[in-house]
């Protein structure tokens, strides 16, 4: 549905959230001549390798270095290789103060995934979803339903051009002809169930598949489920 634009206040700017993927220069020495030499060996005379890309200076390896780092010198050095230093991360308080003084900004240190934490994440079940959203009217072309943080149960048809989205699983007890997007926030255990599998698109945790070419006849128009096995969507009949 198109939103009416406000015609009477011509905006000269908008504030929007944005994210940026950066290259990090992990500094392992605070001695500028060493850094200059190593950069020259690594990148050679070509100063065009970094096409004025923004670069983050990672100080975590020199965090405990007693020698101060010459930030203006480092910035000049990086610029000579067409890098655009924008921020520092992981430095000591003194290093961060010096970086701020040199016109960089500071970002919070990267969380190093400790083995213990990784294990606990893997062992912990995905946040339990107590809630369930039930829709008992037909969803027609252009209509969209999103079950945020919940499973979605639909008791009427989902027609071509309609979209059903859930953070959990999707159950459609009628023909599913539109798009079905389960595990919308990344739950790889989410599934899609329907009594009549005729979707335009199915997706679980971002892995999607259109139905052109059509689904195999053993599931098309039949009771079927969709689940994720690794990076592959498995569509299989439900036999009772």
């Amino acid at each position: 549905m198109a939103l009416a634009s406000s015609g009477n206040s011509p905006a000269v700017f908008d504030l929007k959230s944005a994210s940026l993927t950066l290259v990090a220069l992990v500094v392992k020495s605070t001695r500028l001549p060493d850094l200059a030499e190593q950069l020259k060996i690594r990148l050679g005379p070509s100063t065009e390798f970094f096409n004025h890309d923004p670069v983050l200076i990672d100080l975590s390896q020199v965090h405990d270095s007693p020698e101060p780092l010459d930030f203006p010198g480092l910035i000049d050095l990086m610029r000579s290789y067409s890098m655009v230093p924008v921020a520092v991360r992981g430095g000591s308080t003194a290093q961060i103060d010096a970086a701020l003084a040199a016109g960089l900004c500071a970002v919070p240190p990267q969380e190093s995934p400790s083995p213990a934490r990784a294990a606990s994440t893997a062992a912990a079940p995905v946040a339990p979803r107590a809630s369930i959203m039930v829709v008992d009217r037909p969803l027609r072309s252009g209509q969209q339903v999103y079950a945020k943080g919940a499973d979605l149960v639909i008791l009427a048809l989902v027609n071509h051009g309609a979209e059903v989205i859930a953070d959990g699983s999707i159950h459609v007890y009628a023909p599913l002809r539109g798009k079905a997007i389960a595990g919308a926030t990344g739950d790889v255990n989410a599934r899609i169930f329907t009594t009549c599998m005729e979707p335009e698109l199915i997706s679980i945790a971002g892995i999607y598949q259109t139905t052109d070419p059509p689904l195999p006849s053993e599931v098309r128009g039949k009771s079927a489920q969709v689940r994720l096995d690794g990076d592959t969507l498995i569509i299989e009949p439900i036999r009772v």
Partner: protein
Amino acid sequence: MAKIIVVTSGKGGVGKTTTSASFASGLAIRGHKTVVIDFDVGLRNLDLVMGCERRVVYDLINVINSEVHLQQALIKDKHCENLFVLAASQTRDKEALNKEGVGRVFQELAEMDFEFIVCDSPAGIETGAMMAMHFADEALVVTNPEVSSVRDSDRILGMLSSKTLRAIEGREPVKEHLLITRYNPTRVQGGEMLSIEDIHEILRIKLIGVVPESEVVLQASNQGVPVIHMAGADASEAYKDIVARFLGEDKPMRFIDLVKPGFFKRLFGAR
């Protein structure tokens, strides 16, 4: 209380205006005081199909803007005693419509003891179509046996169930009727057209009638006579059945099965 019926489809050229004219005429023939309103502001056609284009002095937008009284804008139909036409403005656009104005016009029509208000919706899903359906009690969803028309009808059905006043106020939903036009059993048999079953399988609303593809529809339209008045024609009979079913009568579906070619020849006479 007047019953408001919107004739809508989403897609253009499927027969909304033809249906509005014949359906409203049919209600009037059956003795019900009826008004048919053209919501296609800027592209008015209903007056042409009703054959009253030379009698349009004031239109819906004039009434909405309180420039004239409703009585001054209502045009009495030349075929039916109980039928009035409210034409659209040709010089304005859909933005001239607003809920308050349309609601006030309906209120006044109800006070004038109109039993049925038939709203001929423009194509699309923009202001004009939304205004035509906003106050509806029932909807005739006109669909051709063709995938794009069925898809657009589906979209409109979604809006009827979510954007109308009844939906917003959480009252009993708008009663939806499927009306298939330009149906040709021969072409359905040949696989060129969707069948009634195909359409019903997708839309799943109650079928009120099927109007066969017919040359008479175009002839009638060009003559400014609603096709329901073309005695003996299939399309006329089909619309009479639709009106009867709308009024609660039980009529078997006609013109949906393949017939021998000789039948059409006989029906359309010397051609």
